[in-house]
């Protein structure tokens, strides 16, 4: 899932300071699961904004809504009518939701209320960790299902750097050295020979280095 973290209230207030009526739009997808952008988060943020603006003597009207997913036209179109009276949209979906809204409603500005972080999963209740960087050419097959691109601070492909110590990454004491994890897992799987192959430099074109990427599913094309 995509994990996002709400921006600080001060920053949000500043970004909507010129408006008297906005639409606050959440999303029923990933950000509902990570608590930062679902129906409840919309309610909470709306009341926080209203209280703050009242204190400033500049009350604001907020239309609250949460489409099933903000990243598809079909779901956001259901709120077209409500949008007509709003001066701007404050979105607490991920960055994809914000852009879907921006493209659909060219004359209305959509402001991000979240910092979109990464693709990952909850390792425990209310704690998410990154697992995939969408590099476009997956190597999990020979790493024992553990990703060095998303989880190694140096994106190394040929084993741990010299800073790996007691299973911890040199960059952050609270983060596992992913190459220690890979080593341990491959050892368990009896596949340490995977680590002896000198892996060639990666083709970063499939990642973010050749501009926007596109996926086509031919069979489903109309």
């Amino acid at each position, binding site marked *: 899932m995509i994990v996002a973290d709400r921006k600080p209230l001060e920053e949000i207030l500043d970004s909507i300071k010129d408006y008297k009526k906005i639409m606050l739009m959440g999303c029923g997808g990933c950000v509902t699961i990570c608590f930062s952008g679902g129906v409840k988060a919309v309610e909470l943020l709306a009341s926080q904004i209203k209280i703050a603006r009242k204190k400033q003597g500049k009350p604001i009207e907020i239309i609250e809504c949460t489409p099933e997913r903000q990243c598809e036209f079909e779901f956001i179109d259901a709120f077209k009518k409500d949008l007509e009276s709003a001066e701007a949209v404050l979105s607490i979906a991920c960055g994809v939701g914000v852009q879907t809204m921006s493209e659909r409603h060219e004359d209305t500005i959509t402001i991000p209320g979240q910092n979109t972080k990464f693709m990952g999963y909850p390792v425990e209740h209310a704690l998410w960790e990154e697992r995939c960087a969408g590099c476009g050419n997956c190597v999990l097959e020979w790493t024992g299902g553990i990703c060095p691109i998303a989880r190694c601070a140096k994106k190394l*492909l040929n084993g741990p750097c010299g800073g*790996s110590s007691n299973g911890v990454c040199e*960059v952050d004491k609270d983060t596992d050295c992913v190459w220690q994890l890979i080593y341990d897992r491959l050892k368990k799987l009896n596949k340490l020979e995977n680590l002896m192959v*000198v892996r060639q*430099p990666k083709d970063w074109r499939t990642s973010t280095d050749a501009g926007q990427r596109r996926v086509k599913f031919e069979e489903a094309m109309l």
Partner: protein
Amino acid sequence: MKSAGRLEKVLTAGQFAVTAELGPPQNANPEAIKKKSQHCLGNVDGANITDNQTAIVRMSSIAAGAIALSCGVEPIIQMVCRDRNRLAMQSDILGAAALGIQNLLCLSGDHQTFGNHPDAKNVYDVDSMQLIAMVKKMRDDKQFLCGDEIKEHEPKLFIGAVANPFADPFEFRVMRLAKKINAGADFIQTQCIFDMKKFAEWMKMVVAEGLHKKVYILAGLTPVRSHKALKYMKNNVAGMSIPDELIARMESAEDPKEEGVKICVEMIEQIKGMEGVSGIHLMPIGWESITPVILERAGLLPRPKV
């Protein structure tokens, strides 16, 4: 000969080699390099010119290396993977060779969050293993990484890599060394050794695998002036093993500087007797002037003629 350098000649002649570290300044003053070069001149077979070490901006290692060369010191240019992509690296490798540089040491590099630009984007387009293979490809196959031919004047560099016997996973460290040799490393410099026991254990594994016959291994040593430096490294530098006895010995010494030199000389003696070690690499952090003193006392001067 892969290069025409002194370091390779000394090692292939079977002589015990000596290299030392020479850190470029955080400014554009060539005099700083010239001054430090004097501590190395005639005393070492190669001087490592660090590359934005600990992720702090310093004079380019290639520029500083060219200055050292003009002072008669053979530079070993360090190149980290943090700051440059494959285009910039290959172009700098050609440039270094054109300036007369004969040795190149390939490293991953400390993460930028340790340095003075922690907010920088890092590169790591290629990792240290891939860098070793890339330099070898340029030298031996006369090809750029992409396969394009280098029609003439390929860079004739003696290729170095690093090994850290004290990092984890410990058992993987020997495998990683083997991998670096397969990738094309000609010589290895180790992380600085304080834990002789652990180093000896690692060397035994290296010898058992026969790796010492495929690569020249130089043992890294750092003379220290106080127990505080040791304590600091123990607590703050990842991938270091520093025995408490050593800290205690430094702490109780009447003349800690002398004790630091003594310890270093003793370690050199132990290393000389160890199977599979071809030399030492001195890293006297901020104490370059001690290099000739230690080498003299360890009986490593004058350097052999090759």
